[in-house]
């Protein structure tokens, strides 16, 4: 257990020499389990209880789940969340992919521009929410109209603000991905007479498939937790027209003190997020432990 070097015969010694013990991973696993994995299980448990934040949760069986299924706000919220994800994914992926591939080039102005492009990502969601809250203020702002007062306006603002904040990050991911595409592929394509756009669709896009997966997973999970901006800009409104799932959960829990019901919504959120991520990882064979630089 303690020394891997002395165990086994000659070959094993060589193969296992200096290998660290798996126990080294334990503190991280325990910490993460306690503060992230256990709460996930606990959320599921709490969804079968009634709890107002004081005292102890009381089991109530399936009542919260029944309520969730009957709640017209869930259907609406799910619709808004899916619409937000699809719209944002298309918007953010197209722009970050193009910007990232462009920024992977080598001219100096690209480096400076990429540096500026990255700035919004440094601001917190809170700061960005407040920035656009101020700039969209009907009395003060750039556009003297109550955009946030209309459903479609509020929704589009939320999509836009999310894109403004997160496109820098995804651009960077695509830039990294594009830099690792072997130059020889383009040289070969150029010899075969493929033009710039043909090269983009036949080489760049297929080579970036793992990058698209990474970016998409981070985007999907990010959007499922997109909360501060909604809280600050629209408070789920007008009415409940921008009340995405995390906001619905926040209201149920920390506004109405119905933590059991909030946990049911939260469990639903976890299952959706994990399901989507596992699906994406499986579909793309992304989980392998190999370096992508091998064999190049």
């Amino acid at each position, binding site marked *: 257990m303690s020394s891997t070097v002395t165990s086994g015969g000659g070959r094993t010694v060589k193969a296992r020499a200096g290998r660290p013990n798996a126990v080294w991973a334990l503190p991280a696993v325990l910490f993460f389990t306690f503060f992230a994995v256990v709460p996930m299980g*606990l959320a599921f448990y709490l969804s079968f209880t009634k709890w107002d934040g004081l005292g102890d949760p009381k089991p109530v069986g399936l009542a919260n789940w029944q309520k969730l299924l009957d709640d017209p706000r869930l259907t609406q919220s799910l619709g808004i969340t899916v619409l937000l994800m699809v719209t944002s994914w298309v918007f953010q992926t197209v722009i970050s992919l193009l910007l990232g591939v462009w920024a992977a080039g080598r001219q100096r102005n690209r480096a400076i521009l990429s540096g500026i492009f990255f700035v919004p990502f440094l601001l917190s969601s809170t700061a960005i929410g407040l920035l656009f809250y101020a700039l969209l203020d009907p009395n003060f702002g750039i556009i003297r109209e109550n955009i946030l007062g209309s459903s479609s306006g509020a929704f589009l603002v939320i999509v836009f603000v999310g894109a403004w904040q997160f496109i820098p990050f995804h651009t960077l991911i695509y830039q990294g991905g594009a830099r690792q595409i072997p*130059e020889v592929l*383009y040289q070969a394509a150029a010899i075969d007479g493929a033009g710039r756009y043909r090269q983009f669709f036949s080489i760049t896009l297929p080579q970036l498939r793992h990058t698209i997966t990474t970016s998409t997973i981070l985007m999907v999970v990010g959007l499922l937790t997109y909360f501060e901006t909604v809280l600050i800009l629209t408070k789920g409104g007008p009415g409940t027209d921008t009340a995405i799932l995390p906001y619905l959960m926040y209201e149920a829990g920390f506004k109405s003190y119905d933590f059991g019901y909030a946990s049911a919504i939260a469990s639903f959120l*976890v299952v959706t997020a994990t399901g989507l991520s596992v699906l994406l990882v499986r579909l793309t064979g992304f989980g392998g432990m190999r370096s992508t630089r091998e064999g190049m």
Partner: protein
Amino acid sequence: MSHDTLPRPTTTDKRPDRPRTDAHRRRRHWSRRANPLAGLGSIIWLVIVLVPIYAMLSASLTGPDKALTGNPLKPPTDPTLDNYNTVLHSGFWHLLSNTVIVAVTVVVIVLVLCVPLAYVAVRTRTRWSGAAFRLFLLGVAIPAQAVVVPLYLLIAKLDLYDSLLAVILPTAAFAMPVSVLVLTGTLRDISEDLYEAMALDGASPVRMLFQLTVPLAKGGISTVVIFSALQAWNGFLFPLIFTQSDEPRVLTLGLFNFVSQFGVNIPALLASVVLSGIPIFAVYLVARRALIGGLMGVGGK
């Protein structure tokens, strides 16, 4: 390569002033011709990025009396720092020091826990180390919102509610998955031969970690430092739900409270947004290369 003794080529070298390092040569890309469409697109995006930032800076320098009459896109006629003064005298330094404490502690916890884990995940092929790695791979998908209610219960039971630790511990946990991803990505590219050479010298795994892995993974480690600091700095949900009083309040929550505190004083609100961004922007200017290099690695793997 003695350029001085050779006649300079006049037709091919169009950018004689640029230092041509090996890195530049290696990175020479397919798109050597100008691409006007991409250029135009990048300019449009530049405008979209800069207009709100410019409007924020300009408005934060506008006196409150002029705020409601002027368009924020016009430069302020009499720039004033009054708004910044107001914010700095509204408990800003307390919020700042709390935020620094949170960020530093989170970074330390993340490094101490994640570096050994990534090392194990890359260097051993046992079922357990694989499972540990996959736990964090799936952990990327755990939305903080989804666990905030049970965490609230845990924090209350641990008697940590309304303290900085209530913010620090969950923030560190949720910074871990991406950190593990970045670190394993970096460590995977350290050649096995180097480990074998050290093993032949009789080095222990601990010595290898500190003398080989950590120095060679500096890039990835810097990324993790900056990335988790950024997450801690910008975190909002955990402070919102796990703290209540002024004592453990952090910057983001302070900003959120400024809305009600300053009411319609939007210039002061924007000044506080600018102030909250300055420290992280300063770090970015210093550590840009590490941050960007490491994050690009996420997509490259």
